[in-house]
């Protein structure tokens, strides 16, 4: 009934393709906009939208076939072949809803993806590749994501070790402004956490390492200050958050050192995060007042807990997505049925008018004004009576999601409705 137009999806993601392939097809900003606009101009494509993030590139087209979407990838790299997944119709709708709701993400429940999909849609709207269908689809996808976020606890908790560290530090120090972070050792995970803390407002980051070159290198990389290893004690007296990840086989921060440092700090709280294995911070340190010590196991345990909790919540989220996919399909069928009705009525009324006019022309002046009116009314009444049954049935069928009847009606009466293209401006 829509001349075979359907939603098609061709894409690749962290699940199907390695980063070497993903980075070859990933697009951003104006390139993405141009690509969407080109795509929408291709034959057989009515509307198009491309979602491109570091974890996925997905090409949604609304049209007769998915060939153009596939070509979108193969034009960019031949390597994409074999990594692509393809969905059509309801499956494609479901996929977009799951992506927007962060059910398909590497870290399920992470909040960025919804913003990224919104951005893609904004670009598609700006490139005028998103029309009525994609607008409705995306708005529904955003609504679904919002429902999932508010009705399940899928986004609760910390999903990674550095996120756990950040959450902990926030619960100890609250506002991070004016706090300083000390990195002991030049480990990668420590650097990540330090960066996250600086993003939250920590004033300065200090780096110290047994080899000063490495400390300088890392300091340069993350915008920190390198400090000499000999000054560790005074650095500890200064910093509020200490992230330790050296390769040392023994405790770098012993209980005595911690006690000494706490005296120098006049009891100000300190948080020691030990990411090293074997451990670099004596766990007994945490028994002192205002010393908060954690090792990698403590943090990882939280990550595991979060993931288990999210997996449970994901099941509830899937149910919401399924309900929304069904609702979207029903809404679409209702919309599809209404044009058939309108067209049918328009045709019938046209016939009635033509026939009434012809009859009146034959009768010529034999009829007065009242008689003319009666003939026209009779024609209209016949149309109404005839169409009453089909109208009711079609409306019923549309509401209950029966998609066969409108198509059959179109066949039977020989009308071919086009889905109306006049729709409100897509929301950004």
């Amino acid at each position, binding site marked *: 009934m829509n001349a075979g137009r359907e939603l098609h999806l061709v894409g690749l993601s962290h699940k199907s393709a390695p980063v070497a392939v993903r980075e070859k097809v990933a697009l951003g900003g104006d390139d993405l906009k141009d690509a969407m606009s080109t795509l929408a101009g291709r034959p057989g494509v009515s509307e198009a939208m491309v979602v491109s993030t570091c974890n996925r590139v997905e090409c949604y087209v609304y049209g007769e076939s998915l060939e153009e979407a596939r070509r979108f990838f193969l034009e960019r790299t031949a390597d994409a072949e074999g990594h692509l997944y393809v969905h059509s119709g309801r499956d494609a709708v479901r996929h977009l809803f799951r992506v927007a709701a962060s059910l398909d993400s590497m870290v399920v429940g992470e909040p960025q993806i919804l913003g990224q999909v919104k951005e893609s849609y904004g670009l598609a709207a700006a490139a005028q590749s998103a029309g009525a269908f994609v607008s409705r689809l995306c708005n529904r996808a955003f609504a679904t994501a919002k429902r999932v976020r508010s009705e399940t606890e899928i986004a609760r908790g910390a999903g990674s070790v550095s996120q756990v560290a950040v959450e902990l530090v926030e619960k100890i120090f609250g506002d991070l402004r004016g706090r300083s972070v000390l990195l002991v050792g030049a480990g990668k995970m420590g650097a990540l956490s330090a960066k996250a803390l600086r993003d939250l407002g920590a004033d300065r980051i200090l780096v110290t390492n047994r080899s000063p070159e490495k400390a300088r290198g890392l300091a340069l990389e993350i915008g920190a200050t390198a400090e000499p290893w000999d000054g560790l004690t005074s650095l500890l007296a200064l910093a509020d958050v200490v992230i330790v990840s050296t390769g040392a086989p023994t405790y770098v921060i012993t209980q005595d050192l911690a006690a000494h440092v706490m005296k120098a700090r006049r009891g100000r709280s300190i948080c020691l995060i030990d990411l090293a294995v074997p451990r670099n911070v004596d766990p007994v340190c945490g028994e002192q*007042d205002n010393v908060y010590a954690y090792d990698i196991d403590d943090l990882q345990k939280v990550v595991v807990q979060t993931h288990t909790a999210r997996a449970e919540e994901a099941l509830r989220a899937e149910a919401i997505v399924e309900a929304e996919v069904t609702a979207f399909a029903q809404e679409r069928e209702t919309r599809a049925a209404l044009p058939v009705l309108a067209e049918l009525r328009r045709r019938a009324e046209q016939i009635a008018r033509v026939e009434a006019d012809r009859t009146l022309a034959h009768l010529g002046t034999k009829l007065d004004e009242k008689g003319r009116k009666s003939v026209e009314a009779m024609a209209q009444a016949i149309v109404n009576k005839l169409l009453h049954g089909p109208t009711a049935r079609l409306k019923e069928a549309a509401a209950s999601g029966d998609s066969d009847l409108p198509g059959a009606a179109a066949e039977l009466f020989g009308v071919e409705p086009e889905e109306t293209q006049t729709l409100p401006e897509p929301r950004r």
Partner: protein
Amino acid sequence: MSLQVLRIAALFYAGAVAAYVVYFARPRHVRLAAVGQWLLGIAFLVQAAAIGLGCKEYGGTEFFGLRGGMVFLTWLGAGASLVVQRLYRIPTVGAFVTPLILVVLLPTLFLVKPDARVEVPPEVLRPMVTVHIVTALLGVALFAIAALVALMYLLQEREVKGKRFGALFSRLPSLAALDTLNHRLVRFGFVVYTLALLSGSGMAKVVWKSAWQWDPQQVTSLVIWMLYGAMVQLRHTGWHGRRFALLTIGAFGLVVASMVTLNVLPEGMTRHGGDFSGERK
């Protein structure tokens, strides 16, 4: 009449308790915190009306007795907690403060008549006694809120140190925020309590002809004042966190203990709260 109005105020307090407690259990419903604060504000205003009516009905002497004191204490506590919410925006504090207010207020609702014992001689009724009652009770209210915040600190510290990152951990505010709030409440409470002591001894000088008489109430008040003064001082030498929280709770325990014991002491032991007249027996 004033009692009816007070009961209406208690209903609003109960509403505020419900809103804050549900908010604490389900922090997703952020609006509940605002609802709680509104209800607390309304309760505060209604109780103000009840206190005003009470003053008209009984001439204001009810606040010299235990019941009136409790009514006034809860009112000042509600006001102080509204100000704290306004300044620090830590709505979870409401989940701890409002239940306490309601618990203290409840017994006063069913004593129909204000304390019959209270007969205040006219020479006591001067502006300074109003200052004394208001500052003493406001000081106690602030110390009470400080103790609750300290309790929240200890709960959160147990979660953070015990590596239990569960429901309490995520609902309670950060240790630093609680510690700072606790300290500020203690400091402000100390200032207010100092005023209470000064106005109190001023009253004693007028009524008893001597500012200091080794009256048990005077002695305990001085001890409490010195304890909170010491806490304000200790803060500067680096005392904070767990030890400070424990001290806050301990000091408030002393405040409560003194209020209870001084009220059950046989008459004549203390002149306060009953016998304002003449020479010491």
